[in-house]
Every structure is written in C-alpha cells, then in structure tokens.
C-alpha cells in the first residue's frame, strides 16, 4: 500500500512537471517570425506589448498602433482582394502611381505617364528606387509584376486579374514600361493609380508562396520587422526610401473583430487609430479626453438591387416607387448617427462621371403609393434580402427600409436576413435568372470612375448586374471607347441620369469610414479606406 502510494505520487509529480515544461517550451516558441526578417532587422520584436500607443516610448521612438477589424490574408500584395490586407501590405509595397487623400492621382514609382496611342500606355520609372532587399527597381521587375497580376500563367492566378484592364502585352524598356491593352482602356491611369503593386521578380522566383505571404520586399516607406500571422504585423522605417521619410519610426497593425475591444484599445491608449467605430460607440470616444472621431466619406455605396426581369420590379414605376418609399435621410440620421450621405445615382460625388444635376429621390410615401397603383402591382408582396454584418448596420438599414416599404398601403414587404457568403453565392452565379429579386448590397469603387460601378453592376454583361438595358449598354460602350476625357465624362453623366430614372436600385447612401484617432497624433483619413501611416505626425 505504501509502495503504491509512493509510485502514484511520483507519477503525478512527474506528470505535472512534464506538463508545465511542455507548456513553457511551447509558449516560448510562439512566433511566425520569418527567417529573412530576423536577418533583415535589428529590431528585437515587441516585448512591451502589441499596441504602440500614442506617440512613442521612453526611448524617443515614434510608434503608431493601428487596430482594424480583421488582419491580413497573407502578405502577397497581388494575391488578395480585400481592404484589410491592402492596408497592411500597402505600408511596404507601392504601385506605379498613387492617390492623394481625396483620390487625386499622384506620382509614385512612375514619374511620368502618357498614352502613346489608343490602347498603349507608357510609364517612365523613377530613378534610385530600391527594394527593401537593397536591390534597385528595374523595368523588368515592373513588367513582371504587371504580368503576374494579369496573366494566369505567370506564377499565380491573381484575384486582381481584371483590375488593370484587358492587358495583352507588357514591355520593359530603358527606364520605362509600356503596357498594351485589348481596346482603348480609357481609364488606364485611374486603374494604375489604385492597383498594381510592384514586386521584385528575382525575389518572387526564389521564394515560394508561403514565404512571400509571410514576408515583404517592397519599395515603400516601411519595411517589415515582425509578422505574427493573424495577430499583428510590425513595420519600421525604411531608411533608403526614395520619398520623404515618415515621421513615424514604427507601425504596429493588429486587429479585433469586436468593435468594443477596438474602442477599448483606443481609450486605454494602446492604439492610436482604430477603424470602423460603430455609431453606438461614437459618443464613448467623443466623451473621452484621449481620442476623438474622424469620419470621411468612403468609396462605398450602399443600395437595394431590384432585378429588372421579374415582377413587380420589371416595372420602372414600381422601382421608382420603392425609391420614394424609403426615407434614406432618416435612416442616415437615426441608424448611422449621420455618418453617411444620400445618393441618387450609382456614381458617388467627386467621381468621374458623377452627375451634379441629379437629385436623390425625396421621401414621399404618397407618390410611392401612386406609382405602385400606376404600375399595376398594388397589393404585391415582396421580400428584401440582406446580408448580416457585412456592411455597417446593414441589417438595421434593411429593417428600416423594409418597414417603410411595408407601411405603404398597397405593398407588403418582408425582410430575409442571410449570411453574406450564402447571399453572395446567388449574386455571383453568372445568370441573372438565379439572382435574388430584391437585396441589399454594397460596392466599393477605388478607381473613382463611374464605369467601375456601372459596368459590373448595371451593364448587361456585368458580373453582378440586375439590369439589361440597351441604352445603358450603348452609353457605356461609347464611354469605354472615347479617348476625349471631357466627352467621356459627359457620356457617363448621361448614363447616371438614365440610371437614376430607370431606378434599378433603391439608391441608399454613401458609407462613411469612421475612425477613432488618438489625440496624441495628427492624421487625416482618406476616402479610399487606406491608412497612410507615413502621413501621421505627433501633436
């Protein structure tokens, strides 16, 4: 008995020690610190926490912490199609052209660009640009990067394949690169100002996808110092950057899906910039003495799609009636706390092709009821489908809209909430016959050009279209083949007027990007949702 006891006790003691040792050993090796990064950087990593927090530390380093809703999906700048990843990789990678905070086109790796002939664009490259590896940027690197994006047989099938237009050939010259398109590509420079980050050819060829997605080698103002996948990414200033050196020495980007956690991080001074502060948290930030709210109109438009080929939405009067039935300004005020602006056409203000003469539909339930009667669909029952949690307050917005439509005396409207991936499965089916009849959707247009909304969403061959209209198609065809920019803008304005009248959408609002920003820093947000940490300064 006594021996048994001793053995069991010893066993338990040994097992306990072993468990503790395994736990300690396991925990100490927790990092995705990439090999090359360790070599590249002298930074010892983040031993003091993952939020940089308010203007630096005791050693005089100016560190900035950014907390987003979601982390990156890998660091390959050409193998993703979403904003959070772009914010992260965009600290290290650059394109040939760039945009200022309002969306205007500015220089980046190219100092000059011209349309040599219809369908041919030439970019003159900046001298003395180096990748973070230390190697110089060459025209071959630029040409390879463009090919990697647009051609399926070059390394990857990039989800950005259509983002640069229909490229047929890319030629590297002496300090310049020529891109040849199928057709005119009238917005080539708008496309290149938003898309097409440049990578080093030899670096891509020497490394596998796993490595490229855990490391960076760009030409941007910051270089990677620590990558902890799904947790946080830290960048430090790239000393040999060709442009103006950023005031910020170190940037830490992390994420929390919980909006309250993001706000808590800001208020506890663990983070300097937090994204997507929801309306209900705004007063908490504004009421604090450490941070404030900074909101800007984004490039995203929210709308209710109506399929043109099914009753009752096949009637233009009925579609217009739905526009009169929804009190968009009331929704912006009450659901979004004022963070939104009403729209009346697919194109947002300040975009190429926006028609300033088009007014949004006013809220007029009487007119809505009259139009419903006129359409011959009085008494109809419809269902609005909405994604859950995809866009800011999407369900609440859809609830309000459906309720307002339902309050018409001659229409009853129900709401169906759907998981986004399920809804998007129907929306992207390719056949208009399989698409939902009436649904809420949002669309971001980073190119600031009307065509990039109208063609995919409202032209007959658009991937997400709910409308087939010869007049719209003809106008867009004309616009895409018009090299005179003024004439093209006039065509796009006409298309926007036409689409307002055709009312294939209930035109809702332009979504705002709402940031919480520490009072310790000076930073102005951008329209295109990118966070340009290199423009942050301390107060």
């Amino acid at each position, binding site marked *: 008995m006594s021996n048994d006891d001793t053995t069991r006790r010893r066993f338990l003691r040994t097992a306990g020690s072993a468990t503790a040792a395994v736990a300690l050993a396991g925990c*100490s090796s927790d990092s995705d610190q990439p090999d090359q990064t360790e070599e590249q950087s002298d930074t010892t990593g983040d031993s003091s*926490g993952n*939020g940089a927090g308010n203007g630096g530390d005791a050693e005089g380093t100016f560190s900035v912490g950014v907390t987003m809703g979601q982390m990156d999906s*890998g660091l390959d700048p050409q193998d993703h199609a979403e904003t959070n990843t772009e914010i992260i990789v965009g600290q290290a990678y650059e394109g040939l052209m760039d945009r200022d905070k309002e969306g205007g086109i500015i220089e980046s790796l190219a100092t000059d660009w011209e349309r040599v002939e219809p369908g041919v664009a030439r970019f003159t490259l900046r001298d003395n640009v180096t990748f973070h590896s230390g190697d110089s940027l060459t025209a071959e690197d630029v040409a390879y990067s463009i090919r990697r994006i647009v051609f399926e047989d070059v390394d990857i099938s990039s989800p950005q394949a259509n983002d640069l237009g229909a490229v047929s050939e890319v030629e590297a010259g002496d300090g310049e690169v020529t891109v040849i398109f199928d057709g005119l590509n009238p917005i080539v420079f708008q496309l290149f100002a938003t898309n097409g980050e440049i990578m080093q050819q030899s670096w891509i060829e020497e490394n596998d996808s796993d490595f490229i*997605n855990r490391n960076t080698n760009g030409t941007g103002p910051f270089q990677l110092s620590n990558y902890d996948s799904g947790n946080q990414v830290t960048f430090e200033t790239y000393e040999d950057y060709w442009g103006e050196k950023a005031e910020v020495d170190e940037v830490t980007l992390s994420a929390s899906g*919980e909006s309250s956690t993001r706000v808590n991080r800001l208020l506890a001074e663990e983070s300097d910039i937090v994204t997507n502060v929801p309306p209900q948290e705004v007063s908490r930030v504004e009421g604090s003495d450490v941070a404030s709210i900074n909101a800007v109109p984004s490039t995203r438009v929210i709308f209710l799609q109506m399929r043109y080929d099914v009753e009752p939405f096949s009637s233009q009067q009925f579609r217009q009636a739905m526009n009169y039935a929804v009190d968009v300004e009331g929704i912006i005020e009450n659901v979004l706390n004022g963070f939104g602006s009403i729209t009346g056409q697919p194109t947002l203000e300040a975009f190429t092709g926006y028609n300033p003469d088009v007014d949004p539909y006013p809220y007029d339930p009487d007119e809505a009821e009259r139009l419903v009667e006129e359409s011959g669909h009085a008494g109809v029952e419809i269902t609005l489908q909405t994604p859950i949690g995809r866009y800011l307050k999407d369900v609440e917005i859809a609830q309000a809209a459906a309720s307002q439509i339902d309050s018409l005396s001659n229409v009853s409207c129900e709401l169906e909430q759907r998981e986004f991936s399920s809804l998007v499965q129907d929306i992207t089916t390719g056949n208009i016959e399989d698409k939902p009849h009436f649904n809420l959707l949002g669309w971001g247009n980073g190119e600031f050009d009307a065509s990039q909304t109208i063609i995919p969403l409202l032209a007959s061959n*658009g991937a997400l279209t709910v409308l087939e209209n010869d007049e719209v198609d003809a106008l867009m065809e004309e616009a895409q083949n018009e090299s005179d920019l003024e004439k093209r803008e006039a065509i796009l304005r006409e298309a926007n007027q036409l689409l307002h009248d055709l009312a294939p959408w209930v035109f809702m609002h332009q979504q705002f990007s709402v940031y919480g920003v520490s009072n310790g820093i000076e930073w102005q947000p951008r329209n295109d949702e990118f966070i340009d940490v290199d423009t942050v300064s301390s107060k």
Partner: protein
Amino acid sequence: MSFGQFAIKRVLQGVGVVWGVVTVVFALRFVTPGSAINAVAPLDADQETRRAIAAELGLDQPLYVQYGQYIFDLLQGDMGFSYIRGQAVTSLVFSKVPATVELAVAATVVAIILSIPLGVLSATRRNQPIDYGATLFSLGGISTPNFWLGIMMILVLAVEFGIFHTSGRGVNVGDVVLSLVGTEPFLDTLLSWLSYITLPAIALGTYFTALITRLTRSGMLDELSKPYVKATRAKGLPETLVRYKHALRNTLIPVITVLGLQLGTLIGGAVITEAVFSWPGLGTLVIHSINLRDWPVLQGSLIVIGTSFVLVNIVVDMIYAYLDPRVAYD
C-alpha cells in the same frame, strides 16, 4: 482486461473519434452555404476567372478525390494550404496552439488556486458566512457568461483604471522564463505578462472555478462523513491532518478527473474569450477563418481542437485507470 489492453482500446477508440472529426469537418465545407471561390475572387470576377481559381485550388475535383487527398496529406502531417492566406496550414495552426494552451493552463491555475481552498473552507465551515459566500460566488460564476465578464473587466480594470491591458498577448510565458537568464528584467517581464493574461484567464476560468469549488465542497462533505475519518479522529489525529491529508486527498481524485476533462474543454471553448480579448490563439484563428471562408485553416484548427480534446480524454482515462485499477477491469 489488463491496463495495457485497456490503453490500446482507448487509443483505438480515440483514433476512430479523430477520424470522425476529420470527416465531419471536411464535410462541413460542402454543406455550408457559400463557395470558397468567393472568398478569393472579387465579387465582380467573371466566370472564367472563377473557374481558373477553382482549378488552382483543386476545387474542381470530385468530392471523393478531394477527401482522399486530404486524408492522405493529413497522415503525412500536411493539413493543406490556405488559399486565402497563401500559407501552409499546419505551421499556421500550430503557431497558435501555444497561446491557447497558455490561456487554458492559466485559467486552470486560476481555478485551482481559488477553487480548492474555497471549496475546502466552504465544507469545513458549513453553514457559516464563508460557506454562504462561496456558494453565492459559485452560483454567480456558473451563471455569468464569460464574454460579459470579460467586457466588464476590460471596461473597469483596463480602460478605467489602466491596471491591465485591454487585449492582445504582448508577452508570453516563454518570455518570462527567458528573462530569468536573459537581459530583460525579470520582474518587469513578469508584470507585463500578468498585465496581458490575468483578465482573459479570469474570464475563462471563472466558470471552472465555480464548478470546482462546488465539486470540492460536496466531495469534502462526503469524505468527512465517512467512517475512516471518524476512525482517524478517534485515533487522536489533529483535525488539520484529518482534513488535508486524508479527506482532501480522496476528494481530489474526482476533482483531478474533472480538471483534466475541463482542460480539453478550455482549449476548444476559449473561442469567445479569445475574441473578446483579441487573444491570438486557435479561437481567434477559427473566427478569422470563418469570416474569411478559409476552409483549410478552419478544418486544421477544428481537427487540432478535436484531437487535443480526445487526447486529453484518453490521458485522463488512462491516469484514472492507473490510479484506480477497477476502471481498467470493467
């Protein structure tokens, strides 16, 4: 049945359960709505681009081929490749395991430190204020959702008083150990570690603490009423020895069993706590992968969580069988 046979039987059962987990997790991809292609392709991608991406990801293969390939790769330790992140799943998932284990162990430690003394005190001072207090605490702990408790603690102790970090995992227990031999000051590192882990550990461990307190209390009361305790008292042993050497030791056997099983639950059940505290463990990875529709990573994470649960169960069963041979003979 000998202990060895019992062990082999349990391991084989475990393998069967893990295979079941793998199959169910694999099937989930096909019964849940939404295509993985939509997670990779932009919304306005044309059908040709979608087909090209599907082919690159192997999603155009028949289901049985995909399943067979998946099992074949899994047996070689390859959980696949995340087409969203462009990274190998195995290394990605296992890089998150330490954070989750650290949190689960810390929650367990919090639970053990608080619950066993509280349970013993509660039992030995039955119907006294401390017993009522412990009972109230247990009821509160069992009925309080851990995400609510977490948010409240963050608001009060992190945002209002700034004692702890609101979220994240800046320093891990390995850093603390290394600071003993390295250049970082040990005390600072320890305090920094505590400032990150304390709140999530309490949030995760509170339910567990309450449960073990109740278990210890009832176990102690049961043991203290048994004849052998009367015999030890009759022999004149001091009350301290009677309680702690005899009654408590016997009480701890079921407590250890529950502790082991709960550790498995904590690894899988930390998802919400990890989300509230942005703790970079498996739970956060699971949520992130669901949001991204990153099926390979989600599958890998669920398989690791399921397998660890099965492993912990097997180990607990075997320890129990070893400590109480009657279990193996049944």
